[in-house]
């Protein structure tokens, strides 16, 4: 039990359970299989984008541009589709565009060594402009049936996007825990100069991470477009960056890098999803929804901080 409490993610797990209990008391509909499926379904793209963001934050950076990258890729997929390109090829091309956006971020951050926040703030403007520009101001909609599969299809009775998300989460948990590339991310976030001395190419790893982040946003945007059924370039994903960042930090990540896990982040996303869904399910006045969401985010962070204080107590004389 004590060991369990020392797990990095313990506070957020407990807090999530408490919030879940609260909502189940408020509304009998909340803890239904159907609703749980719904919560998962609504947050698929968040889950996927958050994987990339976790890696970025582990490096000690942040990516404000994910929302705009999502808009660019979703819009271009829409354009490809309306030009009659096969859904699978269109999706693949869209993901490539996500990768391309990641490469742009990566180039400026890793190679030109401009601080992450400045680069992604800038590309946030740029990609959004490009997205709306190529859309010509119109909506991407009326997608062919074949494309809908990415958002709504079922494989062996399991929702296709959910399957993709689960596979991606599993792959990245494996990558982060069991491969040199994954451990390099942790080491750079923990102590950049030491990583360099250990022969790790900081620039290459950073570049890779931003490209992967772009790739993941690309995948997420295909699912997003197929699921929602229409894309408005000017607003698609506009609050995504902040929400995903909040999820990573709620999930135990540190904005200074080196600390955090994919699993924790996924819990953070789930927590946010539960809050958003639960507030509506329990028929809270619409005017209270975002106030309550913000309050719960702050509360979750306070709880995380408490844990850190508890852990660091009685460790006087430590280097860190």
């Amino acid at each position, binding site marked *: 039990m004590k060991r369990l409490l020392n797990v990095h993610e313990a506070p957020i797990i407990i807090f999530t359970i408490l919030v879940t209990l609260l909502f189940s008391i408020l509304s009998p*509909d909340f803890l239904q299989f159907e609703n749980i499926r719904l919560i998962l379904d609504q947050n698929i793209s968040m889950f996927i984008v958050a994987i990339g963001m976790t890696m970025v934050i582990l490096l000690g950076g942040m990516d404000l541009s994910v929302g705009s990258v999502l808009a660019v890729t979703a819009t271009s997929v829409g354009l490809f589709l309306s030009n009659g390109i096969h859904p699978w090829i269109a999706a693949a091309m869209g993901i490539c565009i996500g990768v391309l956006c990641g490469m742009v971020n990566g180039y400026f951050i890793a190679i030109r060594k401009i601080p992450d926040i400045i680069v992604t703030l800038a590309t946030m403007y740029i990609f959004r402009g490009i997205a709306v520009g190529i859309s010509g101001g119109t*909506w991407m909609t009326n997608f062919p049936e074949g494309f809908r599969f990415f958002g709504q299809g079922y494989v062996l009775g399991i929702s296709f996007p959910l399957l993709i998300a689960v596979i991606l989460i599993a792959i990245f948990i494996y990558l982060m825990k069991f491969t040199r590339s994954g451990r390099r991310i942790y080491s750079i976030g923990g102590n950049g100069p030491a990583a360099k001395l250990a022969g790790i190419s900081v620039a290459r790893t950073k570049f890779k991470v931003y490209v992967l982040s772009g790739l993941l946003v690309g995948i997420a945007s295909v699912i997003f477009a197929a699921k929602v059924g229409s894309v*408005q370039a000017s607003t698609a994903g506009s609050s995504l960056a902040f929400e995903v960042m909040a999820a990573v930090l709620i999930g135990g990540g540190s904005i200074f890098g080196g600390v955090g896990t994919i699993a924790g982040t996924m819990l953070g996303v789930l927590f946010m999803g539960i809050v958003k869904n639960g507030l509506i*399910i329990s028929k809270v006045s619409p005017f209270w929804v975002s106030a309550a969401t913000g309050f719960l985010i702050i509360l979750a962070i306070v709880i995380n901080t408490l844990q850190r204080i508890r852990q660091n107590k009685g460790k006087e004389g430590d280097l860190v």
Partner: protein
Amino acid sequence: MKKLALTLLTGVLALNLAACGSTSGNQTDNGGKPNQGASGSRTYFMNPKSIGPAYWAAAEKGAKKAAADLKVEVLFNAPTEADSSKQINMIQDMLTRKVSGIGVSPNDAKAVGPVFKKAKGQGVNIVTWDSDAPDTERQYYVAPATDQEVGELLAKTIGEEIGGKGQVAFMVAGLGSQNQIAKSDAAKAYFAANYPDIEVVTTVASDDDQQKAYANAQNLLQTYPDLKGIIGFAGGEPPAAAEVVEQAVKAGTLEKNQVAITGIAVPSVVKNYIKNGTIKTDIIWDPGKLAYVTVYIMDQLAQGKEIKDGMEIPNIGTVKVDGQSVFIGTLEVTNENVDSFDF
């Protein structure tokens, strides 16, 4: 020093790009030199609520067409988000440019008051379109119908479809947006007066975010299993609701036609849903026509001509003028006529 030069160079390049952007963006722009021969050409500024939504893109086409037809110059621009202070900054900038008239779809009816006053002081005609700003110095308001009429029409449509009884949910773009409030209040009042058995269970807002609208609709179906109808008060809401309902029907959690949907949406966006029968009736007007009429009215005002009820507008037809308001009328989009719209 090299970096300095590079920075400046890029700055200049960026601005050149901008200048190119402006010329390609405006067909009637005289080669990027706006004030050339000011005596002959009149310039109008058309200012929607924001840039991005399909609705405004359709309006832009109409405005551009009017520009070509009337041989005037029209600038069509707005902030990327529906933010009234940014919108007003832009109007102020355009007043500096001494345009002949400004057509505004205000994000906040009260907030535009001061800038309209200033415009009047400079002799610039202001015409509001799509959304009104009563009690200001605007000269005319061009609309399909009043917000109240539209709201009532939506309420009537859904009331008829669900047989006058049951739960209805409202989906709006923003809880703070006035045209949304006016329409939904009118719909509520209409229910109270005509369909006392209809209960409006909640109002959810998407803040113009498609994914949020989609999630909202999902949550609505989950929360209110007895829900009979959804009204979407802005362009993004009906397609999101329809998408969710269609998926639920496909997944078997909802029966077909269990939830009726209506709302305001551009036909091209909801075409598939109307054909599938998920949306029976969609209320819309031609935003292009709206913009066209606005430009036309401004042009008339600039030339000192009179605006009369029943006046004939070339390429459009007659319009109804009631006091300071010009109405072009609404359209009901159904399965029968959905293919006949080009916007």
